[in-house]
């Protein structure tokens, strides 16, 4: 409770009006890097086999696995980890997908050897609110249109 960043930025101000302090861990997280808004699927034809790729990481230990959802989090399937898997390090994941041209809500959800599972936006916001500057590890959603455009959306209830 001595340095300025600890008081005004790294603390997570919750809806109760009180803030979580000394909150240092980089929580379990992941993002799909292909496709993404900058690298979309406008060049795919129905039937093309495409590799969905991404990165997962956790400050609580080592990434154990990553699940992928095509329908905004209702159903999930396991992706495979690629390359080196080390504690507190970028971990690649991959999933071979046959492109069917239909719109989808693409998500990745990582989990680690410290029993953390990446929360949904709702699960995260219910506990830490939205006013913390850091600690944003909720599941990221790419909306893929039937044209293959990709944009960032949130699934909320």
């Amino acid at each position: 409770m001595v340095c300025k960043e600890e008081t005004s930025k790294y603390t997570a101000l919750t809806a109760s009006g009180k803030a979580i302090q000394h909150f240092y861990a980089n929580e379990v997280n992941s993002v799909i890097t292909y496709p993404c808004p900058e690298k979309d699927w406008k060049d795919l034809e129905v039937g093309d086999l495409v590799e969905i790729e991404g990165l997962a990481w956790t400050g609580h230990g080592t990434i154990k696995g990553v699940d992928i959802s095509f329908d905004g989090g209702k159903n999930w399937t396991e992706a495979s980890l690629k390359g080196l898997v080390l504690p507190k390090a970028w971990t690649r994941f991959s999933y071979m997908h046959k492109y069917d041209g239909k719109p989808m809500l693409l998500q990745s959800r990582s989990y680690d050897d410290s029993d953390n599972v990446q929360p949904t936006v709702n699960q995260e916001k219910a506990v830490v609110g939205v006013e913390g500057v850091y600690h944003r590890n909720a599941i990221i959603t790419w909306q893929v249109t039937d044209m293959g455009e990709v944009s960032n959306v949130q699934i909320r209830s």
Partner: protein
Amino acid sequence: MFKLDRKFVTMGVILALSSTLAMASSSTIGIYHSTSGAIDGGVTYPRVDGEYTAYKYNEQSTKGVNFGRTPTANEIKAWDIDALPDGSGLPEGEGSVGLGDELYEAQCAVCHGDFGGGGEGYPQLAGGNQAKDKNGIVITLKNQRIYGSVDAPKRTVGTYWPVATTLFTYIRDAMPYAHPKSLSNDETYAITAYILAQNGLEVDGEDMDDDDFVLNKEKLAKVVLPNRDGFYPNIDGPNAQEDIRAFFADRAKNIGAGTRCMSDCKDPGGPEGKTEATVMKIKYEMSDVTPAYAYAKDLPPKKDKGTEHPGKEAYEQNCAVCHKTDAMGAPAVGDKSAWTETLKQGLEKVYENSIKGKGGMPPKGGSSASDDEIKEMVDYMIEASK
């Protein structure tokens, strides 16, 4: 070998005993523990020396690597400049609110605004409503910009910061932004006094908002900021480590955690516990990018095959290297007499030879094409040699 094993067993017993004793003698189990994990909720991994750490331990020999030396007492003294909430570590010196006002106007206001009111992209230092509810919580800090609310919580020194000594150390070490560490201790006390005064604070019942008020080490340590108790988990006292460990262990309750549901999942949470998910666009999503987003299908250009023979492209890739000329002894494409001769054995036999191989030609010419594709290539070669 036997002796070595015995030695390890004995050492293990001694280590286990000593760690039990260590645990019994102190009330804490340390930052990294073999079974309780790290204090921040993470797991730990064994090191070669029986200790645990949050990282995989590098077991490579470090012999011959120069890791520097132990710092001297004076070097540590030069680095050890932090000040604790109780004021220990603060240097001697003093400065008045009046001097702080002048310094602030000259060096700080350009970013932080007049009277600490905040500037474009730079933190507001004073202002905000310090009023508390009956539980001692600063009311405006409960604002969350969610579900349509646009009122932000104001995080100024007066409404949010827990400890005043932070202000002194941060200004001294990091401000002004363009030339940090340029202020003397006296000047830093003066600016600290001015900012505290702008927040309407007092020391021992004495109002600071007076140009003649002089701040020093003793007075700064006595300033109690309104949001002193607005933070958790507890980090003070003998149970601090256990409190922090317990807090970060219960992640679903305290910092948000997911569940690994695989099918038919319902998303919990949200305002009235609604479960029907909606898709919301990101309000501030960046769209002004280079190259600009395109909103049309962007397929690779298709080759216009037109009336071209379906076997031609495959022939170019698989057969042409030998069949383009008769240099390899194969019937050359375009050589009418050679192909007439070849076809005397019957089309089916030509197909068979092309699939099974003949003479110097390996089966299918060494390609991985299907039988039908091979036949298509043969058809093309015959067609092109008429």
